[in-house]
């Protein structure tokens, strides 16, 4: 399954962002997954559970938000939710539609904790 390869890349990106932003411990990773992303949320979670413990973000919890598959009709302009992967306008039945959401696999945000010992040291030197 290719979720393992993609989650490995996700973890590397999170590690880099956390380091670049001075964070010492990542406690949460939030991702957005759409129905046409090509990744299965359950498999993303199990890949994360498999890979995170041996990474630099071993304490991070994964939060997965899901989007709907939405499209806009190129003919009548109607926005609608795509049902059963039938790409057909719910208004005029035109098959000429553009996807507006639902193919994402995005890193939304991370929550980092700064080093508590560094904070304590600052307080005690005042």
């Amino acid at each position: 399954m290719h979720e393992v390869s993609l989650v490995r890349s996700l973890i590397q990106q999170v590690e880099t962002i956390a380091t670049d932003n001075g964070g010492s411990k990542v406690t949460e990773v939030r991702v957005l997954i759409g129905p046409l992303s090509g990744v299965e949320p359950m498999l993303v979670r199990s890949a994360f559970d498999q890979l995170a413990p041996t990474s630099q973000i071993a304490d991070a919890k994964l939060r997965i938000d899901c989007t709907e598959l939405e499209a806009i009709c190129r003919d009548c302009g109607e926005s609608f939710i795509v049902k059963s992967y039938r790409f057909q306008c719910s208004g005029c039945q035109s098959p000429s539609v553009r996807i507006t959401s639902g193919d994402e696999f995005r890193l939304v945000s991370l929550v980092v904790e700064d080093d508590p010992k560094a904070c304590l040291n600052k307080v005690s030197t005042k």
Partner: protein
Amino acid sequence: MNVSNSRTIAVDRDIQLDRKREAAELRNSLTARGTLVVNLVSSPGSGKTSLLEATARHWKQKWRMAVLVGDIATERDAERLEPLVPVKQLTTGGACHLEIGLVKRGLDALPREDFEFLFIENIGNLVCPASHDLAEHRRVVLISTTEGDDKPAKYPKMFRTSDAMLITKTDLLPHVPFSTDAVIADAKLVHDEITALPVCSLTGEGIDQWCRWLEQQRAAIIPSESHR
């Protein structure tokens, strides 16, 4: 006392952004070199290698063509194509799809020549390869007459991201409950602009139209100074 500062870092980034950029850069450089890249995808056994053999035989010396073949194991497909065209086998050792890094290594290993057509024969899999840009200009999905004409809606991302659908092994139509009209209708419900082409690599039926479609795609994408 434990004092910790928790803060949220907003990112909002496509997790595959770097790979997509890498693929886009490679695609641009291949366009500049006059090479049309075609990613062939399908289930195992739909006839990708046979199609490439038939394409090479049809064109003979008309166009310079090269192939990168992806497989989990063995070099059997490359061995079949070797007498006909420059080919490199990309062996993933277990990964169910090709990625851009492996394609780049394969390209470097091909003879240094500006091919008019580069075909990437993907791993036989209608699921994972749909999400991986291999720097192709065109993605072509194969579905054979023995697979069932209700497949397109079962693999929406693959059919949605493919520019053409080749219906292969048409010589078996009299013997299977497969409707060409039904599979085309199903594919168009997922992707209305997909081009459908029936072919038979064994008999040569439809190969001429397939090759003409490829030539039209190249003419539309490659700058005219690269045309013969």
